[in-house]
């Protein structure tokens, strides 16, 4: 949520709050106004009624508006709950707590008030009260009846006195001067004489000014006379500021008939003003009571509505106040939760707006401070990480460079930690040892070294214990499977800056080829010298032996042929020939010509060589086998003819004149691009130590062998960048394997 959105929400809430307070205040103001109108403006004109209705409606609308605003908050809370907005649980609880705190006392109070009002109304309208009031009114009525009775008697007396002969006289019997005395005597206010129709003939008032009520009295007399049944009933006559008077009529019979009224005598007596006032009060009270009783049920309803409205107002106000307080409390918590969530997701740019100065504001300020610290820390961390990454990349580059170097150097390198666990081994070491790095990395050297190899390690350990030198080297000769390796082993003991033992680095230099080459060179030098030194005296020896033989054979004075001499000279000549042949071979070995390779069909050479031997040795089965595809190689055919002859000669001699099988196999490995020539025999085979030295000059397992055949083979193969090795044949015998690299393929012809 952006800052502008937050400000907008805050403004909207402020407006809402102001509106709620205004509505509440308006409800109260209009309510009081309405009450004031009801109480004091009893005679409202049309405008007043309209105003009243408007007030009632406005109050109702405002109440409903209040209800709407509160319900809106409630609905918002429900939606927040459904959406799972942060802080809704606390807000709901707080709101419910406030509402409960308000409703728990309000609702019982409402019930008690309604009940109390209902009881009070029932009590006020009890029969006892009504009866008392009715009796009071009845008392007043009795008093009036008594006065009426007295007046009736007075009327009769007045008639008898005024009209002693019982006849109607149109003359006024009471002169204005006599009237007050007469009326005082009878305690009357006025005397009237009316005819049978009720028309007043004459009247006499006690006070002259009262004569102004003549018309009213005459009207009352007329009305009374019209109702013959109630002539003698008392009639109230209003007399303005003098209060009220009671008028009673008495009829006088006509002279022509006793039952027909000829005229009426009316007497009027003012009632005491204080008494009439009290009677009015009593009657008014009774009337009010009866009216109230009439409106008892509506009154109850009205009070119930009023109480309900007040209760609703209180409840709405409380609910809204609950919402307000809940938001006031949970708002910052919600902001904190949101901000914490953002921080937890890695957004450290969050900052809370500080608009409070209470503990919550302090907490928010602390949060902002913490986030700033975190941001600063992270920036530093990022810097450190970047530096570390650069350093790591540099180290990695170095490591890779070192690995490349180690992988590509000819020497084998093996790293061992202080516990004897192999931690690293380069490709050269893998190639020398014939094991892969995966097999031995992480394993202790004791777990995979063979006993004789372990002895080498132990010898180094012993040397280290004795010398305590960190660098040692030693020439060792080890056999690995069918191979013999001459190694220069260099061990560097690793120590950390505290001088603690940290393992060792073993560097293995394969000196086998170097040794072989040196040995070969040495032998060739020896052969050359032997050939030179021995060959020269051999010819005179042979010539001398032949001369001796010829001399003695021709009878030069000696006894005829001496068998011993003959035999000796013959042996000398034979041995000299043998030595000559030997010297020739040595000479040939020493003067091995340089190879001149050209495209050559090795299969044809092999076929040719095998054909010669097949005729010579009938008891030996020669086999010739070739893979489906075998390339034309780039070889010196003369030299490889000799290689084939030497190998076949070696195989035939291994069989030692017995039956057996000799097989020449030609194969091509397209993956490695290597042409392989194998010569297998079923002879007795070679001992392991013989296998190690079989390609050395002058090493032979045969009595009369020169030991140069296989040495020449090895020399020729080496000159062709090939490799020769020997292994046991299955099930018996020996296999010599020559591997020649095929470096170029052109059409069907492959060249070396």
């Amino acid at each position, binding site marked *: 949520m952006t800052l502008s959105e937050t400000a907008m929400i805050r403004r909207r809430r402020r407006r809402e709050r102001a509106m709620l307070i205004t509505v509440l205040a308006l409800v109260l103001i209009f309510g009081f106004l309405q009450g004031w109108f*009801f109480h004091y403006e009893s005679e409202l004109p049309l405008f007043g009624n309209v105003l009243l209705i408007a007030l009632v409606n406005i109050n109702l609308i405002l109440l409903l508006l209040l209800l709407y605003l509160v319900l809106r908050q409630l609905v918002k809370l429900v939606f927040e709950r459904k959406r799972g907005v942060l802080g809704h649980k606390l807000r709901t609880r707080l709101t419910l707590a406030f509402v409960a705190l308000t409703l728990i006392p309000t609702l019982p109070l409402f019930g008690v008030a309604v009940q109390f009002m209902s009881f009070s109304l029932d009590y006020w309208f009890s029969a006892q009260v009504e009866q008392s009031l009715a009796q009071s009114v009845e008392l007043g009525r009795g008093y009036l009846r008594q006065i009426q009775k007295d007046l009736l008697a007075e009327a009769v007396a007045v008639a008898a006195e005024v009209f002693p002969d019982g006849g109607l006289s149109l003359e006024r019997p009471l002169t204005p001067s006599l009237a007050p005395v007469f009326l005082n005597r009878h305690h009357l206010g006025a005397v009237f004489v009316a005819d049978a129709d009720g028309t007043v003939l004459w009247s006499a008032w006690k006070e002259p000014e009262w004569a102004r009520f003549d018309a009213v009295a005459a009207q009352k007399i007329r009305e009374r006379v019209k109702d013959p049944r109630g002539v003698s009933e008392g009639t109230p006559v209003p007399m303005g500021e003098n209060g009220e008077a009671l008028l009673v009529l008495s009829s006088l019979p006509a002279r022509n008939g006793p039952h027909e009224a000829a005229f009426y005598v009316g007497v009027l007596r003012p009632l005491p003003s204080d008494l009439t006032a009290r009677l009015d009060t009593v009657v008014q009270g009774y009337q009010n009571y009866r009216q109230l009783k009439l409106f008892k049920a509506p009154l109850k309803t009205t009070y119930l509505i009023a109480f309900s409205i007040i209760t609703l107002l209180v409840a709405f106000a409380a609910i809204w106040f609950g919402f307000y307080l809940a938001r006031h409390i949970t708002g910052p918590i919600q902001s904190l939760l949101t901000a914490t969530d953002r921080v937890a997701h890695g957004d450290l740019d969050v900052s809370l707006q500080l608009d409070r100065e209470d503990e919550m504001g302090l907490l928010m300020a602390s949060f902002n401070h913490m986030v700033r610290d975190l941001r600063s820390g992270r920036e530093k961390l990022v810097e450190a990480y970047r530096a570390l990454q650069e350093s790591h990349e540099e180290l990695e580059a170095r490591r890779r460079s070192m690995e490349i170097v180690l992988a590509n150097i000819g020497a084998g390198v093996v790293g061992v930690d202080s516990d004897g666990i192999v931690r690293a081994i380069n490709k050269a070491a893998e190639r020398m040892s014939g094991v892969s790095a995966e097999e031995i990395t992480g394993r202790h050297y004791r777990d995979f070294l063979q006993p004789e190899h372990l002895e080498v390690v132990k010898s180094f350990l012993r040397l280290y214990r004795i010398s305590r030198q960190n660098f040692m080297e030693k020439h060792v000769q080890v056999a690995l499977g069918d191979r013999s390796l001459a190694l220069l082993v260099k061990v560097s003991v690793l120590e950390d800056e505290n001088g603690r033992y940290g393992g060792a680095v073993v560097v293995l230099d394969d000196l086998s080829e170097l040794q072989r080459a040196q040995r070969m060179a040495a032998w060739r030098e020896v052969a050359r010298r032997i050939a030179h030194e021995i060959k020269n005296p051999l010819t005179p020896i042979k010539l001398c032996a032949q001369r001796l033989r010829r001399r003695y054979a021709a009878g030069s004075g000696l006894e005829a042929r001496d068998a011993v001499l003959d035999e000796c000279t013959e042996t000398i000549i034979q041995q000299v020939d043998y030595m000559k042949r030997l010297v020739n071979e040595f000479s040939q070995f020493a003067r091995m010509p340089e190879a001149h390779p050209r495209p050559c069909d090795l299969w044809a050479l092999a076929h040719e060589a095998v054909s010669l031997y097949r005729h010579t040795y009938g008891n030996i089965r020669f086999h010739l086998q070739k893979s489906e595809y075998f390339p034309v190689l780039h070889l010196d055919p003369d030299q490889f003819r000799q290689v084939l002859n030497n190998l076949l000669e070696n195989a035939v001699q291994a069989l030692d004149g017995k039956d057996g099988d000799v097989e020449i196999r030609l194969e091509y490995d397209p993956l490695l691009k290597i042409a392989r020539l194998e010569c297998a025999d079923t002879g007795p085979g070679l001992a392991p130590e013989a296998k190690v030295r079989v390609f050395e000059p002058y090493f032979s397992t045969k009595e009369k062998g020169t030991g140069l055949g296989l040495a020449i083979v090895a020399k020729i193969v080496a000159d062709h960048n090939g490799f020769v090795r020997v292994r046991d044949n299955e099930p018996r015998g020996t296999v010599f394997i020559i591997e020649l690299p095929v470096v170029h393929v052109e059409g069907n012809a492959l060249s070396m």
Partner: protein
Amino acid sequence: MRKAFFFAGCLLLVFLAASEPVPARNKADITDLKVFADPPSLKVSFRIDNCFNQDMEQAIQSGVATTFRIRLVVEKDGLPYLRERLVDTSVERTIRYDTLHEQYLVSRVDDPTVFLTTKSFDEAKAWMSEVESLPVIALWRLALDQTYLVQVKAELSKAQVPSFLRYVFFFVSLWDFETPWVTVTYTH
């Protein structure tokens, strides 16, 4: 906030719509309406039926002064809303019970300050509901051979209950009545 005002407006409309036609409690009606010329005036006579019910009678006997208002309209015959209105007046008649003297007082139509008294409630009710020869308009104001519409309507004007009970009428419907307009034609 705009929604709140919209909601309040809707409520006001509902209230206005609901409060406009106030249904009469009593099925009061005007009967025997007669219009006749009684020089120098055109007079009307009629009777209001069913203008009293039990509640109203109880209220009157409890001392509540009750006033009927009779509206009289005289128009020239013509198109509705365009008719010329000659008279639009109203007269009132009030009944009141004098508890102390146990008599009913009914004001006269021609002089509301003068009360007729009777001890009989039936007679008082008859005085209230019957109108005899009430002058409406002077005959000289009427043109010859012109048709006029005389419309009469009666309603409860007010019930003078004690002031502290008046607000009850805004919450509780009591016993007010209102007759429909009754129209007769008169050709002079």
